């Protein structure tokens, strides 16, 4: 019924954000606490660009800007710190989050911002006998395109092969002659670019504020960990499952709905510590 579709929408949104985190973790083995911050910056950049250039251009600008930021991030933060303990990079991403929030607050102010859906997506369709916003179908569509795109890229291109190899065994892949540094930069850029994309999509759904990252980062981590930190399919499945059960929880078990994602994660980790599709490292 319609509630199932609603669950798909939230799951799709989570997927686009989470898969970016998976990409970054897969290659750099970094728990990126600043991912929520990238999401937030993506939302603001697309909003700022959209004011003058329209929603679609705003989306492109946001993805491009965040991807560029990802390249810099990999070069100047992840790469030099890759020799240190992972906790060091984790802390740096925390620091980055603080800085990003303050920067955005200074530039765009403390007031909330609400973005309307672009005209092309502003209407609604009849679905299962009730009015359903086109924009939400768009969100599902974006997730499907991203999932298919990634799957194709990973399986059908040479670079994709390197990425898959690197996420299973970075050392051996490096020894085989793959320039893991250039590869990482590329992949991290896609990861942050996807954060920018999910930030753009979030605009017409939720209020923009400098601290908006904090509202989805936990769910995002839950999806990534449940799916198996380096698995894209895992993230897809986890996102859809968690989105679905969370939404069903809101409908039928509202008292416990907010802990359902947490419970699912604990359950999965308890039965399969490497996550649904994780490879065990």
């Amino acid at each position, binding site marked *: 019924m319609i509630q199932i579709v609603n669950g798909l929408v939230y799951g799709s949104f989570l997927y686009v954000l989470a898969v970016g985190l998976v990409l970054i973790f897969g290659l750099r083995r970094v*728990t990126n*606490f600043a991912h929520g911050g990238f999401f937030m910056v993506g939302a603001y950049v697309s909003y700022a660009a959209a004011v003058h250039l329209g929603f679609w251009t705003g989306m492109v600008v946001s993805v491009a800007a965040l991807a560029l930021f990802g390249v810099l991030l990999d070069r100047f933060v992840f790469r*030099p*710190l890759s020799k*240190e*303990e992972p*906790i*060091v990079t984790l*802390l*740096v991403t*925390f*620091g*980055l*989050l*603080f*800085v*990003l*929030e*303050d*920067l955005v607050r*200074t530039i765009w102010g403390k007031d909330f911002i609400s973005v309307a859906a672009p005209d092309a997506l502003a209407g609604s369709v009849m679905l299962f006998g009730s009015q359903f916003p086109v924009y939400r179908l768009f969100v599902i569509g974006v997730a499907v395109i991203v999932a298919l795109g990634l799957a194709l890229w990973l399986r059908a291109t040479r670079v994709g092969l390197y990425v898959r190899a690197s996420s299973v065994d970075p050392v051996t892949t490096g020894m085989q002659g793959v320039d893991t540094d250039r590869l990482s930069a590329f992949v991290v850029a896609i990861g942050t670019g996807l954060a920018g994309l999910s930030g753009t999509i979030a605009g017409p759904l939720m209020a923009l504020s400098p601290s908006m990252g*904090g509202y989805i980062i*936990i769910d995002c*981590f*839950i999806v990534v*960990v449940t799916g198996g*930190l380096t698995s894209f399919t895992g993230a897809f499945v986890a996102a859809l499952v968690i989105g679905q059960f969370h939404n069903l929880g809101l409908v039928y078990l509202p*008292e416990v709905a*907010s*802990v359902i994602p*947490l*419970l699912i*994660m*604990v359950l999965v*980790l*308890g039965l399969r*510590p*490497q*996550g649904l599709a994780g490879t065990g490292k």
Partner: protein
Amino acid sequence: MSEPVSRVAPTVGATGPAPRAASGRMLVSAVLLLAAGVAVPWLVGSQLMLTLMTQAVIYAILATAIGFLIRQNGLTSFGHAAFFGLAVYLLALNGKFDLVPAEVAVLAAIALPAALAFAAGLVIVRLPPLAFSMITLAVAQSLHELMLRWRELANGDDGMPVRLPSTLFGFGVELFQSPSTMFVVCWCALVLVVLALAALSRSHFGVLTVAIRENEERARYIGYQTLVPRAVVFAISGAIGGLAGVLFALYNAFATPGALHWSLSGEALIMAVIGGAKAVWGPPLGAMVFFVVKDAVGDLTEHWPAIIGATLIVVTVMLPHGLSGLVERIVRRLKDNRP
């Protein structure tokens, strides 16, 4: 468990002077620190300074708990606020429902987090490190949600006061609420905790758990039980987190779900890592420095997040072993330069 310690010692941290001299030095340092702490209220007249230092020390104790877990188990807890907040709420709820005498509640607020940590630890310390971390996050967040929703019990986000009797353990309760005396209480607690953990880390148990941290399989093959020691470490870490919560509840006399929130766990983790978990005294040092710096910067500007964030990045990159690593390096260099 009858194998000599020396088999596993080589991979463990600092080799130094003979154990006797080291523990002697530890005791002397502890006594000096305790004396210094007692002297502080006389030297520092400002109530403001004293209250800030008291609160810094309370967070230092929480950070110590997290650091100990990292050091002995190699595990990072993303949810230590669970132990902290649990202790706070136990005291608050006991104050409301008058179930047991306050002294018993205080002890329970340290024992219960320890027991829960032990029980949970038996299951989760076996997991891959990130799975462990995420589960600690999940448990803490679930507790947070529980306290937020169960309004009839604890008033939700509006919080509840912690009612205390007029005397506690024979002392008037003002002892725990006036900055000058509470600072001494908290400081002594911190020094004793660090002393105990330092002694523990040098003991057979401490060496064993580090060995398990480095290579669990090998320790098991040698014949050691590897699960229970790790769970015990987690329990100790939980107990210390509970202790911090107790002191917080006594001093602030107010409980809110914020005491269980992941942002508190995150801040305490930052404090522990900035201090450097390799040394037992690293995390409390990091906590106090972080607290003081954050407070000072917040005094100056509302853009403190940018400054603190940037500082965090710089400090972490330049000092991957934290402040304690820096101090140890300096001390070593001074020693090397001695004629």
